[in-house]
């Protein structure tokens, strides 16, 4: 484990509670009021932590045979859905831990789950197919087979879903089933994010590049030069800054003005090993990042994507995920040993 020492210029963070789950904590999410933090691990357990104290309110060990893979929280109802290697989607009441729904997709991993912003549709990827359900768990739509396994999902609008796989990003109207747009590019797309207005689509590719498209104009660009594959991408809430991993430095592209084509990106250097997590705060240009070496950093960025460190901490193992509390005043990071660490953040 490398050492990570960093002066905290403003010291915006203060340690909160910490807890543990049984194995590598693969996903986590806060309820909208910050009352509960739900964490799932690769042993298949799902845990509900008291948001204020860190006390374990409920735990379902081995809920997903083979391990959990994904989690999504409904932004309206706070229902938490988890997907696993068992091909199931389980939906939990975060307050009580009661299992409210089970959807069994049979074979194949449920690697991606995401709720639409209006909380009406849950999209799940299962091998080459994508299924969309309503809040009752009733299937709204199921895609045909994609050309290869779906690697990422994102909602562009309340009823339009984007899917990424090898060679393409496709947009579907989930009520009519129509393909509304298809963006093709020959490469294995490993990650995808959309800007807030849904116009910019950014994908990380296996061959160490970031590719992006503007849907309105159809223009696309490629950013090369990453030392490893950019599996982690994040847009800020306004959709003007795109933070990208793919190495130990974080590269931030600014979409203001004519950018980012022809501009120099902001480069954020603090992590000593490759970045494994990037999440913008719900508001403002505050970015949280985690890395293989267990370091967690919080950055304040300017319009151009340059920034300074405003908080840092060190976990015991690889940072598996970071989740901002919806009010932006708290942060949780999960690590490969099952550690769950929280901080309070002053704005």
């Amino acid at each position: 484990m490398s050492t990570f020492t960093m002066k905290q210029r403003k010291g915006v963070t203060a340690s909160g509670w910490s807890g543990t789950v049984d194995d590598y904590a693969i996903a986590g999410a806060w309820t909208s009021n910050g009352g509960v933090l739900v964490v799932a691990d690769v042993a298949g357990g799902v845990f509900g932590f008291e948001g204020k104290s860190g006390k374990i309110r409920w735990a379902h060990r081995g809920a997903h045979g083979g391990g959990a893979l994904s989690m999504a929280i409904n932004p309206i109802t706070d229902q938490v859905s988890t997907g696993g290697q068992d091909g199931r989607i389980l939906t939990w009441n975060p307050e009580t831990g009661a299992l409210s729904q089970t959807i069994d997709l049979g074979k194949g991993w449920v690697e991606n789950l995401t709720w639409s912003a209006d909380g009406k549709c849950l999209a799940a990827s299962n091998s080459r197919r994508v299924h969309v359900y309503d809040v009752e768990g009733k299937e709204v739509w199921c895609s045909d087979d994609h050309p290869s396994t779906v690697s990422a999902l994102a909602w562009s609008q309340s009823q339009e879903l984007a899917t990424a796989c090898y060679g393409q990003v496709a947009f579907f109207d989930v009520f009519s089933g129509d393909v509304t747009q298809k963006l093709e590019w020959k490469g294995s797309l490993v990650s995808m994010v959309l800007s807030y207005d849904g116009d910019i689509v950014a994908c990380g590719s296996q061959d160490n590049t970031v590719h992006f498209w503007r849907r309105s104009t159809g223009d696309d660009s490629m950013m090369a030069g990453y030392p490893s594959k950019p599996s982690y991408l994040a847009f800020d809430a306004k959709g003007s800054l795109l933070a990208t991993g793919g190495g130990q430095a974080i590269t931030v592209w600014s979409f203001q003005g004519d950018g980012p084509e022809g501009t120099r990106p902001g480069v954020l250097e603090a992590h000593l090993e490759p970045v494994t997590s990037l999440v913008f705060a719900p508001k403002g240009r505050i970015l949280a990042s985690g890395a293989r070496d267990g370091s967690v950093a919080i950055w304040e960025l300017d319009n151009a994507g340059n920034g300074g460190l405003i908080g840092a901490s060190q976990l015991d193992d690889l940072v598996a995920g970071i989740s901002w509390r919806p009010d932006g005043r708290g942060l949780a990071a999960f690590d490969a040993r099952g550690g769950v660490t929280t901080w309070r953040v002053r704005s």
Partner: protein
Amino acid sequence: MNNQQKVPVTILTGFLGSGKTTLLNRILSEEHGKRIAVIENEYGEVGIDQALVINADEEIFEMSNGCICCTVRGDLIRVLGNLMKRRDKFDYVLVETTGLADPGPVAQTFFMDDEIRAEFSLDGIVTLVDAAHIEQQLGRSDESTEQIAFADVLVLNKTDLVSDDSLDALEGRLREMNKMTRVVRSENANVPVDTVLNLNAFDLDEVLERRPSFLEPEYPFEWTGVYALEPGRYELSLDDGPDPTMSLAIMTNQGSDDTALRDGAEWCVRQYAEDAENFAAGSTLPIGKHTSLQLQDAGRKSFFFEVDTAGKIGLYAQHTAEEFNMKVLNTESNQEIPFECERTWVAQHEHDDEVGSFAIERDGDVDPQRFNDWLSRLLRENGIDIFRMKGFLSLSGQMERYVFQGVHMLFDAQPDKPWGESTRRNQLVFIGRNLDEEGIRTGFESCLLSQ
């Protein structure tokens, strides 16, 4: 992280009906106390409790670096990436490919993705062969040929359905295609598990011990005898033997150590490239020329040659001395002069398969820069046809022996144990389709530092 800490992965290939599932079940049901994860592509048949069986779609994609042979398995990157997150990690991973799969993309995945490379090592490729049907398959499909060429271990299965003679002939043909491979025969895939797992496949030391001659290049002659001779006229006598003619070249200033013999052999190859001149019994043979001795007459036949200055000569003969009871005699005393040393060579075979393999073995140090330039260019131009490469290198300035292995255009060299007292030597094996053996040999020679 070194190889010892990485999780070893075995790739199991073979045509449908070759016995992959039987072997897989056998491995999984044996008591070995290991946690094994199986990634399979043909749904369903395996069902053993203690192992995790994951079904993955075989998703092969090209890397967008413009090289059409840089294909990897996207599904493996995802599945393995997830497996390595568990605290109780697996001791072993088995990847079963579909019958028609080219093993290249699976193998390349372990070179191309940094995260996979950091956690897993390709332990070996095991190919099952249906002894009764492989001959037909080899004629019809590139994939079966590639599966043979990629194999570290070939399990020649269903041997009960084929005669011993046909099996020997088949094994000979398969070995020509892939000299590196270990061939194991079985009736119902009932091979000991340790012949297919934990191969440490790239441990050439062990391969050399098993079959010390496999690295030997093949020559158009079988035998060399070194004789210390004073100036004078000598007789070469031969009795009846297996052939009506025999090629021979005489080299002067021949040393007796192995390096000198190899150098002589390389020289002789160049002479043999010229057409032979025929000589009838009783002729005087020229020195340093490719000759063909005419041995059609029955009984003892004599040829002569002359030595100007005292020293050693090397006789490079198409057959061993024993086969013709070949002797060198002093013409004045009529005394036989025994050879100071002899050496046999691996005789050249006729290759009828497009896919073949050869080895290069040279003492001395390689200039890393020249080697890198040469190999990069070779792989850029011929990577598609080079299925696998493996071997040891003695890089100048390095205390450790380097182990290198490659798949198509990708290669990787890692320091291994220190050379210590042992002779610094380079040993490389190339397996591929229509390889330009001469060109590759010459290219490698040019990377050696002169001593």
